[in-house]
């Protein structure tokens, strides 16, 4: 689905990460795995460190911290926000939604809208499109978009195909109505037939948590997980990414009339370096325009990975001027979202761990 939305701007970005550092090699050695094998995997996939949330810290906490730091940096009062959108797959509760909880924590004006989007790695682009629509056509002058997850809580420590990949983070972005701004061109899509390739089977209404002990099941490679763990078919996820991301990127570039040469950067969901470099190459972008080192410092941060990569790779130029960027997220739900737009200058609060004292 294509949409072009005019008269909106990205006004600010912030990301708060988990405060605890996990080392890929050290964790593997602690499980008794072979160092050579670990180093091979680290080199090929691009795994080094990741930041996970301290016990008791949730995506809501991380996003609240990011939002407060962003509002401070921008010199804005929370009462100026007309709507808050919260993108997450790891909400504090099944009810109420995280957006309403954040609305209360930040003290937004009564009457400011609040809703969640249940999406992961594609979610920031979906959320950006919704925020832009609210500004362009929905009566909002300023929208707070928060996106984040604590996926490290969903993986089994002995699932080496999944557990080492994920870091925890929360992001905050401000989207504002403005005049005379060039259009943002979006491409959103999904292929629900493949949605079960990334799944946490237990914990929803279909298979609720119960009092029975969870059965740990090993796979062909000796990885272990149970029904309440995140399960991901790596090969299928890789093929899906190669199949869907490049056409979406090409479509938004075509609508925006962005050549590769005239585009300042392609920011892909930071799944891992292996996926980023392969998808980036297939999109026709040189490696120097496709940041891929965020994941080696923070891990795969789900819906917070694109804003984190924007801050990590483009803080200086984005703070000073406008950049032509193409962003693309892809993942859970077999969903994808791409946008081509001019972003900046904007307020950026630096990437920080939360709690700050840790």
């Amino acid at each position: 689905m294509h949409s072009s939305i005019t008269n909106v701007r990205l006004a600010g970005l912030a990301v708060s990460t988990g405060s605890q550092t996990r080392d890929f090699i050290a964790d593997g050695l602690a499980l008794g795995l072979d160092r050579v094998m670990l180093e091979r995997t680290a080199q090929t996939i691009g795994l080094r460190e990741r930041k996970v949330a301290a016990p008791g810290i949730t995506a809501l906490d991380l996003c609240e911290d990011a939002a407060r730091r962003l509002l401070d940096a921008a010199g804005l009062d929370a009462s100026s926000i007309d709507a808050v959108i919260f993108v997450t797959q790891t909400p504090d509760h099944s009810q109420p939604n995280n957006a309403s909880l954040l609305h209360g924590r930040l003290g937004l004006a009564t009457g400011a809208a609040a809703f969640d989007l249940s999406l992961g790695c594609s979610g920031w682009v979906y959320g950006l499109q919704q925020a832009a629509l609210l500004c362009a056509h929905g009566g909002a002058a300023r929208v707070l978009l928060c996106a984040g997850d604590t996926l490290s809580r969903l993986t089994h420590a002995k699932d080496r195909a999944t557990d080492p990949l994920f870091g925890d983070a929360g992001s905050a972005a401000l989207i504002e109505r403005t005049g005379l701004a060039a259009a943002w061109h979006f491409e959103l899509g999904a292929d629900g037939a493949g949605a079960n390739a990334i799944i946490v089977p237990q914990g929803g209404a279909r298979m609720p948590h119960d009092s029975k002990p969870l059965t740990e099941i090993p796979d062909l490679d000796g990885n272990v997980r149970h029904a309440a763990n995140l399960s991901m078919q790596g090969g299928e996820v890789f093929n899906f990414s190669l199949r869907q991301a490049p056409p979406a990127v090409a479509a938004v570039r075509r609508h925006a009339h962005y050549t590769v040469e005239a585009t300042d950067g392609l920011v892909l969901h930071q799944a891992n370096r292996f996926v980023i470099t392969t998808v980036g190459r297939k999109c026709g972008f040189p490696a120097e325009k496709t940041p891929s080192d965020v994941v080696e410092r923070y891990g795969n941060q789900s819906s917070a990975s694109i804003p984190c990569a924007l801050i990590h790779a483009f803080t200086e130029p984005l703070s000073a001027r406008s950049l032509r960027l193409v962003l693309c997220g892809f993942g859970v739900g077999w969903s994808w979202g791409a946008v081509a737009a001019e972003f900046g200058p904007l307020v950026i609060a630096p990437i920080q761990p939360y709690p700050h004292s840790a």
Partner: protein
Amino acid sequence: MTSSEKLQALQADVDVFDGATECTVLASLPHWGSLAVLLVILHCETRYGSVVTGPQVRGCKTVGDLLKLFPKRL
């Protein structure tokens, strides 16, 4: 491409297959696993422009079975 040429190409891209023959059982390779499956998928996509799936690769018993998944022509 002959099977021998396909094997040479595979070995050039994925060092998991160093020293392997068409008869080598995949499970006997020291570094066979989920990472190797990803590398095989990438090899097929970049060398042949063709898609093989994780279950297809997992369904192969020997290196020779794997080579049969790849197209005959580049």
